[in-house]
C-alpha cells in the first residue's frame, strides 16, 4: 500500500487516513473533524482556481487548502 500526501490525491480519488502531522493547532482541528486513522476520504473536486480542495468524509463536505492537506498522510484505495 502506497502512502502519500492527501494534497497529491487526484480529483475523484479515494483514500484512507494514516496519520495527521503538522502544526499543532491545525492537527488538532483536523483530528476533531474526523481525520483519524482509517477514515475514508473522497476528493470531490477542487475550486475553480485549483485550490482549495473539496473533500467528503464521514458524510459531510469539507474544504481544505492543499497547504493543509499536505500534512495528512493517506493510503490510496
Amino acid at each position, binding site marked *: 500500500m502506497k502512502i502519500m500526501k492527501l494534497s497529491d490525491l487526484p480529483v475523484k480519488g479515494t483514500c484512507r487516513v494514516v496519520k495527521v502531522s503538522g502544526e499543532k493547532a491545525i492537527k*488538532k482541528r483536523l483530528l476533531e473533524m*474526523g481525520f483519524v*486513522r482509517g477514515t475514508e476520504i473522497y476528493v470531490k473536486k477542487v475550486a475553480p*482556481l485549483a485550490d482549495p480542495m473539496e473533500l467528503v468524509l464521514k458524510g459531510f*463536505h469539507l*474544504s481544505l487548502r492543499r497547504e493543509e492537506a499536505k500534512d495528512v498522510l493517506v493510503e490510496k484505495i
Partner: protein
Amino acid sequence: MNEKKRIKIALAGNPNSGKSCIFNALTGSNQRVGNWAGVTVEKKEGYAKFGNYEIEVVDLPGTYSLTAFSMEELVARDFIIKEDPDVVINVIDSTNLERNLYLTTQLIELGVKAVVALNMSDEAKHKGIIIDIRKLGELLGMPVVETVGTRGIGIQDLLREAVAVHESKEPLSRHIHINYGGEVEEEIKKIQAALKKDRDLTEAFSTRWLAVKLLEHDKQVRDDIIAKAGATDVILKQIETSHAHIEKILGDESEIILADARYGFIKGVLHEVYIHRAFDRITISDRIDTILTNRLLGIPILLGLLWVMFQTTFTLGKYPMGMIGGLIGHISAFLSNTMPDGLIKDLVVNGIVSGVGGVIVFLPNIMILFFFISIFEDTGYMARAAFIMDRVMHTLGLHGKSFIPMIMGFGCNTSAIMGTRMLENKTDRLLTILINPLISCSARLPVYILLAGTFFGRNAGNVIFAVYMTGIVLAILVGRLFRKTIFKGEAAPFVMELPPYRLPLLKSVAIHMWEKGSVFLRKVGGIILAASIVVWFLMSFPRTAEYKMEQSYAGQIGKFVAPVLEPLGFGWKGGIALITGIAAKEIVVSTFGVLYNVGENEVDRMEKLQNALRKDMTPLAALSFMLFTLIYIPCMGTLGVMYRELGSAKWALFAVGYSLTLAWLVSFVVYRGGMLLGVR
C-alpha cells in the same frame, strides 16, 4: 407551589446544526443580542417558559469542539465551565451524526447535565436515516429528543427533558466515561492523582476532564493549572512523563490517540443506534453544487450574484432612502420654523439632525445588504463563495470568507466591517477590518466625480477607475505587509465545512436583518451623534459677527495642517474639506461649496465651483487630493464600527494612524513624482 423557578440553559452545537433555529423556536421574539465580554463574538440570550420554570436560554457560538482553538470555542467552553448552566442542550444535525457527536463526547467528559436535540430529524428521515433514539440516549447518558427547529417540532419535549434532567428525574441521565484504552487510562489516573493533591482544583473541576485536557496539550487548562495549583511541579512533571510514555508505547502523540478513541466511541454508539442508513446517494445539494462551484461557471456566477446584490442594495435602497431623507428634511424644516433662533437651534438643526440624518439614511441599504448576506449564509452559498475565492484571498493572507466583506466595502465600509462577523478567526477579522477602508466606498465617489470632472474632462472615467484600482492594490499590499509583520504566524487554517444547500427560512432572515439594523441604529444614536456635535462645534466656533468657515476651529485646524499638506499640492481649503470629510466623506464636496462660496441652490453652482477649483489647484494636485481622500482616516461611521468590532480603541487609532501616513506618502509620491516628470 406556584413559585417561579429560574434555571439557565446553554445551547451548544456545531455550526450548521440548526442551533439558531432551535434558539429562535425556544425563545420566540424574546431575545437579546450582545457581545461576550471582552470579545466580539455575538452573544444571544432569550427566555422560555415551561411549567413554573422561567428558563434563561443562552446560545453559545457554534463550535466543532471545546478545545479553545478559536475565540468561539473558548467562549463556549468558558461559559460551560465558569457560568455553570443548569442544563446544556446539545443540538445535533441528525444527517451528520458522526462528526456532530464529537462535541457531545466533550460534553460527556465535562460531566455536564445535558439533553441532546436531534435536529433536522425530518431531513434525516427523508434521507432514509432511522435512529434508535432511546438507545442513543442510553449510550450517551443523556436523553435524546427529535426536533425540527425550522418548524418548531419537538421544542416542548426538549424543554420538558431539560427540566427533568435539571430535577434529576430523568432515568437516562448518568455519568459515563469514554474509555481511552488501558495505557491511556492509567496515565489519566496518574495525572488525576497528582491533581487531587490540590484541593482547590478538585473542587472546581472534574479531575478526569482536566487530566484528559492536559494530555491533549490544552494550553489554557495548563496555564490555569499553573496559575491556580500549589504543587505545579509535580503535576507538570507527571504530564511530561505521561506524554512520553504514551508516545513510546502507542507510537503516536496523545492528541491523536485521544481523538481516535473518541471517534472509536462514536463509531461504537452509531453501530448500535442506526436502524437504517442510506449511503451516498447523489443529492439535490450535490447537483446544485456541480453548477455553482463549477470550474468555469463558479466565478462568473459568484460575480453575477454579487452584482445583483449591489444593484438591489443601491437601486431598491434609493426609495426608502429618499423617504427617510425627506422625513429628515421635514423634521429639519419644522425645527427651523418652530425653534427660537440661537445656538441651540443651530446645534439641533445643523449639528444633530443633519449629522445623524446624513448617516441614518443608509439604514435601508444596510438592511437590504444583510438580507442578501443572510440568504447567502442560510442557504450555504457563503461557504461556496469562500471556497471559490480562497485562492485569491489567500495571497493577501486572508481567508476565503473575507472576500465578501471586501467586496461589500465598495458599497459602504461600515456595513462591510459589520459583515466581518462571519469570519471565525480573530486575526482574519482584524486584518479584513483594517484594510477594508482602502476599498473605495460609494461615499467617496462624489468627491472623485467633482474633481475628475473638473480637471480631467474626457478622461474622468479612467482617472476614477485608476483611483479605485489604487485602493485595491493598496489593500493587497497593506494586507500582505500586515500579515508579514503585525500578524505574523497567526494564520488560521482553512478548514471549512461546506454544508448542504438548504432553503432559507424567512423568519430567521428577518431576525438577522433586524439585528443588524438595530446594531446600526444604536451606533447612530451613540458615536455618530457625539461626532456630529463635535464637528458642528468645530465648524461653528468661535462665533463671529459674520460667519466665515476659515475662522472657525475647523478652519484654524485646516490652516494649522496646511504646511503638512503643502507638499501634496493642496492648501488649507483642502485641509478643511478633509477634516470635515472625516464625519462622512461626501461632506468634502459640500465643504468645498461653502469654502468657495458658491451658494446653496443656484443653477450654475457646479460650474462656479469648478471654476473656483481650477484657479486653486492643478490637475496633478487634484489627483493627489483624490488619492488622499481615498486613503486617509475612515469616516466617523466606519471608525465607530471599527472600534466596536475590533474591540479596542488601540486598533481603531492604529487604523487612523496608518491610513494618514499611507495617504500622505502616496499623495506625496504622486504629486512630487508628477512634478519631476513635468506633469502639472
